[in-house]
């Protein structure tokens, strides 16, 4: 039979040559890593914290993008898992745990458990029904948190002694920034790797034609559940980091508008595009931050942008950016 090489292979199949595109992540990573060192020189200390927050939200967005873009699961409850992660940290603090690693690890586990349970129920529904049932569970979590007296309920919960990073403490004022950066990079790398793995391909197949996948012998439900649980766990990590970032947690983390915003960010950036999550988050949060500086009417420009994106970059900003990538 004919060998792989001589066949008319479609673009994209087989290993890509190392292009400028494949270097991009490293460049971005380097710049971000250097930022805290250069920022003070320009009096941009504040933006270290700002970028740190961006990175954390990017983790959440990337996890959502995974089930949304690759899995075709339009979930409107993702902030719920962010919240579970954050409140796990709160619970750990309340229980006297001081180690960030322990708290974050626990956050991952607990939110994974929640995601598994919620997914097990939700994933039987499709399309809008799925969207709404995920929303329902997130809302339950929200109201639960609101009425949870021990953890401050609606008032939220302040973390007065920041969690310890163990050996890393005191190495540098911005050590937490680098930890976040490392984790964000890890999540990004992992998700873009999974996207081209067997699992990723199976997931995309399910997105495109679920019945056919089942008829070809794929354990559709299990694959979706695993993806959903993983995404939930990562979102939980983001929540835990957010708790450490703000040293404050409140139910508003879980409000449905937060879930919607996550969806919006991913969609702006580009569903199923590896840069989709990061781009969307960067655009959205930066806009919100900047606009507020200049006007109290800072919602409508964002609204306008949303509409424009839908019409002129229907597959997300990442696609525009992709074209550039190709021409390089």
């Amino acid at each position, binding site marked *: 039979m004919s060998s792989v090489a001589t066949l008319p292979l479609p673009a994209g199949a087989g290993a890509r040559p190392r292009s400028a595109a494949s270097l991009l992540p490293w460049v971005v990573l380097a710049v971000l890593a250097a930022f805290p060192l250069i920022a003070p020189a320009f009096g941009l200390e504040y933006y270290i914290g700002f970028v740190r927050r961006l990175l954390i939200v990017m983790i959440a967005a990337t996890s959502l993008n995974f089930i949304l873009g690759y899995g075709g699961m339009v979930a409107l409850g993702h902030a719920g898992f962010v919240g579970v992660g954050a409140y796990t940290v709160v619970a750990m603090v309340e229980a006297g745990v001081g180690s960030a690693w322990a708290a974050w690890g626990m956050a991952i586990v607990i939110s994974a458990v929640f995601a598994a349970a919620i997914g097990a129920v939700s994933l039987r529904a499709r399309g*809008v029904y799925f969207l709404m049932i995920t929303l329902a569970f997130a809302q339950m979590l929200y109201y639960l948190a609101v009425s949870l007296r021990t953890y401050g309920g609606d008032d939220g919960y302040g973390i007065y002694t920041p969690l310890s990073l163990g050996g890393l403490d005191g190495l540098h004022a911005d050590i937490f920034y680098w930890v976040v950066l490392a984790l964000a990079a890890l999540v990004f790398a992992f998700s873009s790797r999974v996207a081209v793995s067997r699992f990723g391909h199976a997931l995309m197949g399910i997105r495109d034609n679920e019945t056919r996948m089942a008829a070809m012998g794929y354990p559709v439900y299990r694959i979706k559940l695993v993806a959903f649980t993983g995404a939930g766990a990562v979102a939980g990590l983001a929540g835990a980091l957010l708790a450490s970032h703000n040293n404050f947690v409140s139910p508003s983390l879980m409000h449905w508008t937060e879930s919607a915003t996550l969806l919006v960010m991913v969609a702006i950036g580009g569903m199923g595009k590896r840069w989709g999550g990061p781009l969307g988050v960067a655009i959205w949060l930066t806009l919100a931050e900047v606009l507020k500086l200049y006007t109290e009417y800072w919602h409508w420009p964002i*609204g306008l942008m*949303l509409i424009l994106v839908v019409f002129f970059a229907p597959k997300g900003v990442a696609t525009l950016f992709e074209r550039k990538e190709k021409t390089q």
Partner: protein
Amino acid sequence: MDAIFIFEQLLNGLGYGLMLFLLAAGLTLVFGIMDTMNLAHGSLYMAGAYIAAKVHESSGSFLGAVLVAIVATILIAALIEWLVVRRLYSRDHLAQVLATFGVILIADDLVKAIWGPSPIMAPTPAALTGPVQLLAELPYPAYRLVLLGVGLAVALGLYLLVNHTRMGMLVRAGASNRSMAEFMGVRVGRVFSFVFALGAALAALAGALMGPIGAVQIGMGEAILIPALVVIVIGGIGSVRGAFVAALLVGLVDTAGRAFLPPMLRAVLPPSLAADLGPALAGIAMYVLMAAVLTLKPAGLFPARA
């Protein structure tokens, strides 16, 4: 807890249910039947409420105010449809959610710029303030009776329109397979514009009618969006009958949860726990109901498209 009280609470449940249906009606049409996720429905609802409130205050005629609100909102909707929504019919739900979410953000800022950030006055029509005696022991807000009536009328009208008129068939056809509908000679664009306007009219009606018993303020639209969607989804997207049943169900469950759950829990649980648990559960009753229904029937109570 005497019979009258229970009866009254059931009545309240139905009342709230019909109120919910009223809120969901326009959305049932545009989202359920036309399969277009229009979050801006909330904004149209808000527009209806504001316009009606302002006109009522200045003119003193409530009926006139409602009519003006409906007409004005239809015009606004027409503009939105022409600028945004028209381009969204052929797109997936997510795109629709995004763009119409954008519309919401714009609308909220606009309303704030025009009428300010504070809630505005929406007086109850003079004739309908205060209660009427349903039974000797049971006064019931006159205005609510009107709401119930309108809710029922809308439900019936919508059901007939969707399931027993040609327009209804054409809308459904266009929604499920636009190009085939056009091959059959349907002016899908025109049909959709009409239905969208109708949806807007219902949104305005709901807004105008809710004003007198609720806060007319920015964000009021978003607040009703979720309950409305819940109702539609529980009922089964695309089924008017489903939305109606679901609305009543949610209304009853929610009211019952608020009225009967706390006392019951107090009876069985330690007071402090009951005090915490009761309201918490009552608060999420609607969502629990939806989750339960969708778990058992993943396509809602009355799946329209089997």
